[in-house]
């Protein structure tokens, strides 16, 4: 009894010393913590916002949101109360931004009995939200605060009475009766309308305009915007309940309203919270511990300390992981004392095992302090290492001080030095755990793999891009997950049009889709309205709702800009008529059949591509990177064009730790997807892989710092006498094989004359389960006298080889490429000996061939030195059978060479023309450049007396074939550039003449 009285006296003294007792983390503190959590969460990632279809700004959603009870949906508005705190006290530009809505939720989670305004739902008018902000990870009842403890004045006789409607903080936040065992079962008729369940439903409605059950609830953008506001407001409420776990009074059942302890739910004032609020507001003249702090130190310095953001497998873990004690409540409960649960409190008051109640415990470090007071009273400060089970570390801080006024040292208290130490540990964790739960909420990611796309339907498969969680076809109750497609585009007036598929589609047939795996089935959706022919920027989103990891009713989102028929990225070198500068995407508009230009900008790609994962004869994936203009043969003069960049779908997708010489996607035994890359150092070709996700870090794998990093999985030693250490590698369509040719110089005697020729050794990697299974040297041929392999590629998974043949010059898989008529005119000297000397009699195209930025061949003078080039193959794509080449001939009347260069595909040949490669044996429309005839004789100057009837084209940009087998080629000389496009004219699409255009070949899938 004496002890009890003493406590009361001391409490009065403390209050008097403090002078101005003030208030849980308070509202400005919650606002500040939430703002910081937003900044560290995925919500500050513009990529995620784009995927969600929202942009942050001053007021992207307006000022309305929904308050949904089980009975009715009521529109509410953000109020002056929270706007004032956010904008005037926290100095945030707008309380209506995404971060503003989060902060608004965090602030309004402290509503109490109609303060600051009455809840519109009658049953909630007297709601006391702070009662639900407690969670005791030690008390097995776990029913939140012992607020309804019936206590006589003698506190030792307190009887805990848990009111039947009390909920612990995690239960209240998630919206269930037990966050740990019934986390997927929402409490029906719950009084908290801003739970995780509510946030999730609001998110689904914002994304789709539909309820989970399928009915349409939002037909306008404004209505969907109100659901966006609702989503973030509700998440703000949830975040508040995580932040409170970083206040030990909330995890040690220590009510702190400032009312007498004998009162129901009373408790002393939380000086800790008031002091932290003073720091959050940088208050001037704040009184604490009997002294006045002229200007409180801002919190920014400690909350930005960068505690690592936790990533757990279920929501409740952010509060407590139970046995492993990694939740925030676990940390604050066992790490700290509170004013009402302090070291000296008897076991029925401070009933927590940690920190130890015995001040003689060996874990304490004691500092004796002599106070500058009359009689020099002594006090003892107890320090102790606070354990962090998540990081496995601990930090020693001041925990409690034994009272100078108590000769028995049986009374301990806290002061602002202790509060500073507590805050330095707790607030960074409040921010990090809050960011973590936001990240977890938005973790579901999908990739869309379009199979067919028309103006009215889309058929697709999807892959699960969520980092750790699998997608399941059915949830724990046997309910099938669903997919719905939304679309948006700009109509011909520039207005954004939004729509959805006509129905949700169940995915009950799927079992488990692990991270990076694709769905087994494909799913077809019909649009609610057809996409008009003149629609621009068509973008679809795929929204999954169902079981993801431990969460039965999660949401995962995928987004894709729909290129209806592949196409190319072009760069007009002056401003097109539509006024949009930069790279542009041209594609075949399926409704008109003509080439059209998208208004998308900022696209990019490499000029060498891998096409793979073929389905029905068409690749479903394309990667590209920078490589030789001719595809297979680098430019010895200009150097090696390789860079570390890998592109996909018009954007930079991955950055390798080295210059990419070959790349592909592969699947491992578990069907996980990997990006495979080959490059080299000074002694070896190096094979790396990383998980196939959009990631621009070139970092090598590290379990702690770069778990998604590049893994070196093989190296292939280079020969010492290589002519070039770089050699392009080409993968097959499945990513299970790759081959390259390595160039080595050797001297051989041809026709009795020693000549330097190259040897091409062919190497082959066999890949299994995204790992290198074997490396073979398939050998090579010396010189060009035999059937030497000079290029290798894959048509899907079938190897295709380009060989040099003594009789046929170039052959593909044994078939000659050029006609006898063409290659029989191999030697100028045979037709016009002239002053340059006669052509060596035994010379052939084969033994006069050189490989440099393509393939050159021509006559050689009798002394073995090269003469004039007669043939130049500029671009080859063995996969498509495309050869673009020119032939020069002194006889300009010779009918064969009336054109200036040729494109050959299969057995078809076209001079300066373009044909439809989708039908390889049929010539399509020819689009000759205007004014062509007037430039027929430009080659005169270049070739001197050896007159060329056509001018020699030079590869401009590149030559390429898109996914739909359309061909884009460029012809250029020092005067003009012409671009040719299968069955069309690029100038029609971008409204610029062909010569003012360069292009990158591969736009996506």
């Amino acid at each position, binding site marked *: 009894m004496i002890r009890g009285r003493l406590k009361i006296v001391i409490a009065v003294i403390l209050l008097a010393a403090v002078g*101005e*007792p*003030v*208030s*849980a983390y*308070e*509202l400005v503190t919650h606002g500040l913590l939430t703002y910081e959590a937003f900044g560290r969460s995925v919500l500050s990632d513009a990529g995620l916002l784009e995927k969600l279809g929202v942009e942050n700004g*001053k*007021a992207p959603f307006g*000022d309305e949101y929904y308050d949904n009870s089980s009975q009715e949906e009521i529109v509410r508005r953000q*109020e*002056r*109360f929270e*706007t*004032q*705190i956010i*904008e*005037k*006290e926290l*100095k945030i*530009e707008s309380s209506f931004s995404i971060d503003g809505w989060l902060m608004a939720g965090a602030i309004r989670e*402290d509503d*109490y*009995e109609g*303060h*600051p305004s009455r809840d519109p739902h009658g049953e909630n008018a007297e709601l*006391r939200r*702070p*009662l639900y*902000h*407690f969670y005791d990870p030690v008390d097995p009842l776990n029913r939140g*605060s012992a*607020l309804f403890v*019936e206590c*006589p004045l003698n506190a030792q006789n307190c009887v805990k009475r848990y009111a039947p409607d009390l909920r612990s903080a995690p239960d209240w936040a998630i919206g269930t009766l037990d966050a740990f065992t019934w986390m997927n079962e929402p409490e029906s008729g719950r009084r908290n309308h801003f739970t995780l369940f509510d946030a999730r439903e609001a998110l689904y409605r914002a994304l789709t305009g539909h309820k989970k059950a399928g009915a349409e609830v939002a037909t306008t953008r404004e209505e969907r915007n109100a659901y966006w506001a609702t989503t973030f407001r509700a998440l703000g409420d949830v975040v508040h309940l995580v932040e409170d776990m970083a206040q030990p009074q909330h995890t040690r059942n220590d*009510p*702190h*309203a*400032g*009312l*007498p302890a*004998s*009162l*129901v*739910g*009373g*408790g002393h*004032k*939380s000086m800790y*919270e*008031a002091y932290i*609020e003073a720091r959050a507001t*940088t*208050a*001037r*003249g*704040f*009184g604490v511990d009997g002294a*006045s702090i*002229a200007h409180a130190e801002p919190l920014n310095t400690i909350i930005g300390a960068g505690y690592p953001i936790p990533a757990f497998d279920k929501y409740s873990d952010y509060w407590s992981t139970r046995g492993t004690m990694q939740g925030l409540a676990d940390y604050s409960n066992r790490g700290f004392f509170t004013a009402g649960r302090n070291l000296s409190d008897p076991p029925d008051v401070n009933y927590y095992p940690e920190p130890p109640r015995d001040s003689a415990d060996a874990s304490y470090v004691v500092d004796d302090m002599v106070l500058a007071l009359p009689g020099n009273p002594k006090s003892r400060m107890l320090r102790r290492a606070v354990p962090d089970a998540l990081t496995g570390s601990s930090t020693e801080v001041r925990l409690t001080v034994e009272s100078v006024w108590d000769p028995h040292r049986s009374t301990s208290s806290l002061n602002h030095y202790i509060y500073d130490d507590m805050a330095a540990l707790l607030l960074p964790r409040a921010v990090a755990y809050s960011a973590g739960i936001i990240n977890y909420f938005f973790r579901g990611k999908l990739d869309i793999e379009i199979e067919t796309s028309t103006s009215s339907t889309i058929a697709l498969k999807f892959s699960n891009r969520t980092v750790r969680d699998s997608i399941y076809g059915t949830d724990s109750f046997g309910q099938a997950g669903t997919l719905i497609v939304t679309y948006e585009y700009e109509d011909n007036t520039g207005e954004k049009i939004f729509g959805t598929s006509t129905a949700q589609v169940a995915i009950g047939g799927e079992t488990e889709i692990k991270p990076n795996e694709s769905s087994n089935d494909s799913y077809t959706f019909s649009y609610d309205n057809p996409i008009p022919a003149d629609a621009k920027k068509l973008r679809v989103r795929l929204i999954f709702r169902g079981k993801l990891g431990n969460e039965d009713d999660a949401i995962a989102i995928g987004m894709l800009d729909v290129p209806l028929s592949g196409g190319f990225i072009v760069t007009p070198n002056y401003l097109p008529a539509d006024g949009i500068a930069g790279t542009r995407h041209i594609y075949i508009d399926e409704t008109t059949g003509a080439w059209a230009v998208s208004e998308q900008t900022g696209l990019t790609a490499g000029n060498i591509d891998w096409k793979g994962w073929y389905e029905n004869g068409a690749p479903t994936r394309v990667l590209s990177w920078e490589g030789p203009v001719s595809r297979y043969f680098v430019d010895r003069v200009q150097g090696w064009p390789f860079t570390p960049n890998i592109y996909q779908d018009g954007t930079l997708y991955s950055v390798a730790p080295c210059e990419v010489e070959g790349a592909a996607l592969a699947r491992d035994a578990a069907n996980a997807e990997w990006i495979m890359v080959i490059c080299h150092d000074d002694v070896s070709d190096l094979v790396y892989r990383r998980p196939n996700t959009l990631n621009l870090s070139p970092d090598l794998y590290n379990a702690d710092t770069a778990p998604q990093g590049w893994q070196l999985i093989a190296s292939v030693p280079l020969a010492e006498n290589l002519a070039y250490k770089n050699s392009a590698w080409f993968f097959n369509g499945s990513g299970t094989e790759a081959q390259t040719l390595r160039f080595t110089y050797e001297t051989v005697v041809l026709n009795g004359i020693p000549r330097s020729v190259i040897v091409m050794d062919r190497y082959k990697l066999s890949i299994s389960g995204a790992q290198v299974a074997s490396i073979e040297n398939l050998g090579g041929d010396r010189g060009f006298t035999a059937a030497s392999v000079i290029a290798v590629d894959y048509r899907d998974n079938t190897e295709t080889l380009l060989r040099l043949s003594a009789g046929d010059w170039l052959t593909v898989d044994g078939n000659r490429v050029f006609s006898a008529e063409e290659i029989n005119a191999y030697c100028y000297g045979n037709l016009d000996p002239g002053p340059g000397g006669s052509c060596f009699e035994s010379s052939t195209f084969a033994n006069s061939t050189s490989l440099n930025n393509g393939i050159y061949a021509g006559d050689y003078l009798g002394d073995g030195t090269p003469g004039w080039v007669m043939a130049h193959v500029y671009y080859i794509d063995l996969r498509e059978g495309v050869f673009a080449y020119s032939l020069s001939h002194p006889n300009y009347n010779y009918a064969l060479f009336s054109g200036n260069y040729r494109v050959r595909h299969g057995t078809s040949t076209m001079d300066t023309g373009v044909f439809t490669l989708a039908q390889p044996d049929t010539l399509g429309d020819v689009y000759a450049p205007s004014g062509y005839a007037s430039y027929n004789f430009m080659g005169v100057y270049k070739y001197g007396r050896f007159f060329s009837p056509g001018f020699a084209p030079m590869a401009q940009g590149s030559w390429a074939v898109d996914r739909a087998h359309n061909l884009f080629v460029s012809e250029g000389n020092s005067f003009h550039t012409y671009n040719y496009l299968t069955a069309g004219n690029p100038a029609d699409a971008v409204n610029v003449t062909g010569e003012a255009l360069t292009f990158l070949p591969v736009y996506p899938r």
Partner: protein
Amino acid sequence: MIKWTVAGLMLISLTSCGMVGGPVSGVVVDAETRQPIEGAYVVAQWSGSSSVSIAESQTVCIYTDMAKTDEKGRFRIPMWFFQKPGITGQRQNVEIYKPGYLPETGSRSDEYGISTSQSSINERVDYMMAVRGRATCRGNEEPEKNLLALINALYEESKALAGVEYDSNIVEPFLYSKEELIFGYTRAQELRKKRWSSQ
């Protein structure tokens, strides 16, 4: 039963008492010369602890008022008294504002020193935003119209800092505050939304 009755009586007695504050008076001087400064705005804010919640407590604003210094640098904010239920404790915070000046730091007495501001525009705006925050009584549904002169002075300085009549970053917060005082929260929001949508 007796226990509950006692508790109820204590609760009533704590939450229904009248609040009184002020007066606050003093002099504003040049921090270096200690000469009086005329035309400085002095805003005083009283906050307390709300015990409306029995689980947690909140710092709430009780009252805020403003005075302007006379030619001798003197100011006086009169005493106030009214019923404000559910508030315990009381803290007084005094902020000095004069365009182009900054208050000196340190403990306060009845003499408040200010000196010419050497801040960058961003730092200056940040300080002005803090002054605006002090001149806000959170939760009050009625605008604090007695602070209009101060808010107007902030607005005028913001325009001078921005060098234009309107700027969405520097001027906007003070224009909004002025409109909120004059027209109320709802109308001020409408006006601001119009400005945002026209940008």
